[in-house]
């Protein structure tokens, strides 16, 4: 597993925040996922060794928390909130629009590799619904028109990259 030196430094630092190493499980999973994009098998074993745990202790955490993923995703991760407040003002249409724009299905990497569109549960910004979290950036009041705008922007970025 090839982690950036900065990730390794942050891992060593974050472990010191806790009196028991096992508490480092979630922070380490976050750091590794941010670095390499997902949690491969070897990461589970690596974390277990680092925190003096059995791999099953890490594995059960990975499979419990929705944010950890075992497989790579598209370049951008589009998370559309589907819970009640967002659904009441059109989140399902917003989500369909993203899927249509990138010719993709929920949870799949789009054919151009640019995005993975997912439905997630409440993102705690119900007053500006529908909301969409793209990577680490929250987009508010995303109706179909705004979803189209955002999609165009992502496509333009991709075109520029060539």
């Amino acid at each position, binding site marked *: 597993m090839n982690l950036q030196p900065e990730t390794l430094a942050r891992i060593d630092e974050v472990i010191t925040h806790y009196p028991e190493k096992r508490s480092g499980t979630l922070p380490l999973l976050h750091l590794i996922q941010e670095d390499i994009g997902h949690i491969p098998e070897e990461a589970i074993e690596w974390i277990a060794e680092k925190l003096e745990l059995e791999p099953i202790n890490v594995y059960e955490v990975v499979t419990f*928390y929705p944010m950890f993923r075992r497989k790579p995703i598209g370049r951008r991760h589009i998370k559309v909130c589907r*819970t009640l*407040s967002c*659904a009441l003002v059109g989140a399902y249409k917003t989500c369909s629009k993203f899927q249509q724009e990138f010719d993709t299905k929920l949870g799949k990497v789009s054919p151009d590799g640019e995005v993975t569109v997912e439905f997630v549960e*409440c993102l705690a910004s119900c*007053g500006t619904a529908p909301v969409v979290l793209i990577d680490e950036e929250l987009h508010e009041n995303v109706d179909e028109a705004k979803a189209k705008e955002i999609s165009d922007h992502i496509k333009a970025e991709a075109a520029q990259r060539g």
Partner: protein
Amino acid sequence: MSAPAERRMIFKHIDEEGYSNDIDCYLKNGGYEILKKAVTQKPEDIRDEVKKSGLRGRGGAGFSCGLKWSFVDRKSGKPIYLVVNADESEPGTFKDRYIIHQDPHQLIEGTMISCFANDVKQAYIYIRGEFPEGARILEQAIQEARDKGFVGKNILGTDYSCDMFIHRGAGAYICGEETGLIESLEGKRANPRIKPPYFPAVLGLYQCPTIVNNVETLCHVKHILEMGADEYLKIGTPNNTGTRIFCVSGHVKKPGYYEYACGEITMGQLLYDVCGGPLDGREFKAVIPGGSSAKVLRFGEKFTLKNKDGSTRELGVEDIPLDFDTLAACGTMGGSGGVIVMDDSVNMVEALANINAFYAHESCGQCTPCREGSLWMKKITSRMVHGEAREEDGELMKSVADQIAGRTICAFGEACSWPTQSFVLKFGDEFKSYQDDKQKASAGKLELV
């Protein structure tokens, strides 16, 4: 009927022109003065003040904060931990997000005062995984506070030390339950613990005494010390003191967050006068007053409540003062302050299908009634919406819900059954006629599931 004026205490600086989330701005506005005052006081005096203020937890349960603190085992010889519950994940709730993003030092000051008052050795802020920016802002704010001596070793030159770290969740609703949160902080699945014996105040984080408080609750502590419990008691109504932040979402003209003295505003004033009423051409149909697990209220229903002198009074949904006790007397709860409004375009079977999908997804799976029950309720509403509704489905679902509540380790059992129980009770006809309604295309126009 016009609404009283907003009373912004916790949200005083939210959306204020020129107010930024760095420590310089906070200090310019009198920041950390209350912490400076607090460290010169006796910890037990601060605890007494908070107890006297009547502060009730703002995370959902509305439990007395002073009482919670009084349960802490101070004789065990083990370190005491404090964990800030910034997991904000009850659907419809979005208040802590703004405190964290725009006024993080208010939270840090309130937390450090609470730590000092309880002789806490180490504080953690458990922030939900979906707030990556919030986590960065808090990290930065803690570092600023550490550099100025408000957090860490020898706080403000005293011999009291307490550090604070951020711990990020990873998308599981159950981490908002305090013992699930503790498990998660220990690096495990967030399976809530059984009580007794695992009351956090005695056997919490690392089996040590632990306080878990909501973000907003800890901010209130700062204001209680600032104005004194006697002044704080004057805000709101007896047993419902202080302000409440209402997060309004769904079908109103002006959704958003509004802070009022507890119980000073009614549901009608909030929805019509403050939030601008229903969308054009629509009427209010239902409202969930305290996050999606709170029991739904149907516009048009009446509640007969007892007065202190033994007489009774009748209230409509619009007349309910938004405090903890009146909402409880009306069979629901103020919960986390998340008010979700539905108008007459909504089919209640479909709204419940949306809610059931949430709870089925979020059950930790530990207790059979909840794991199986939440899934079956989801499957039934899902089947109904997808064209195979039966007249008896409402009752069938209610029988499932009735077998969950009270039979689980944590309150998620209640949280997932209350929507089904209340929707079926109050909108039973819609469940019976769903198949016909769907065929007549009077349902399903708004996609909710």
